[in-house]
């Protein structure tokens, strides 16, 4: 699993993941993702277009970091999951608590939406 981060001109951090979000993949990116999104207020778009497999351990990584982002009054949006990954997000209702978009423009607009900070 590879992770590439880009800071967009509007202050949004785009994080591109490539590979498999299984145990090995989650271990490979967990710390980097945490540092990128959880250490200060961040508006993050996590691009899943190149993620070919998502297991429950990968969902845990996404949820944990989304919680940390929201605790700092930031936000996280998931972008363009492949159909198999989208089905995993849907069957676990994760797409109801972490927004999912299918265009970068929509993601950039949505990530700046205010959500209540969580405890």
């Amino acid at each position, binding site marked *: 699993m590879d992770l590439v981060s880009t800071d967009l001109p509007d202050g949004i951090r785009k994080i591109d993941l490539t590979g498999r979000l299984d145990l090995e993949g989650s271990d490979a990116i967990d710390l980097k993702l945490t540092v990128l999104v959880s250490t200060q207020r961040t508006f993050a778009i996590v691009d899943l277009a190149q993620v070919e*497999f998502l*297991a429950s351990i990968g969902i*845990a990584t996404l949820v944990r970091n989304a919680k940390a982002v929201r605790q700092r009054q930031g936000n996280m949006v998931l972008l363009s999951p492949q159909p198999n990954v989208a089905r995993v997000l849907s069957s676990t*209702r994760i797409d109801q608590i972490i927004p999912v978009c299918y265009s970068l423009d929509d993601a950039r607009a949505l990530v700046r939406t205010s959500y209540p900070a*969580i405890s």
Partner: protein
Amino acid sequence: MEEVELRTFAADGREFRRISDWWRGWAARAGLSDDVAHGGELCLNEAVGNIVQHRGDDAAPQPIGITLERVARGARITVTDHGRAFNPLAYTPPDPPRSLNEAPIGRLGIRLIRTYAASTEYRRENDQNVLILTLDC
């Protein structure tokens, strides 16, 4: 093709990719659709993940046996292990979260197995946990 294949793997998280690679190759030879193959791979990941997570303090964990069978309705996956008795199907997953605040971290493996497997069965026999998952084509 050999319609029944059996392999053993160490009860170790480092085996997940080998298990996935084997499953995908077998699923392709068995003519399973991409959707069914993906569902089976996910079920295997979650089932083996449960074994690795719940093996307790086994100093020398016993290997995991996985049998793949092409059956009339689709495919059958049987996962056996010699760990302490543990029926993953007896676990009631939490309700889907209504907010990020109340979302648990983890605890979704059984929900995924129940979503993607057409049927599930567990039994304890000969000091082994036996988990049987059937995928419909």
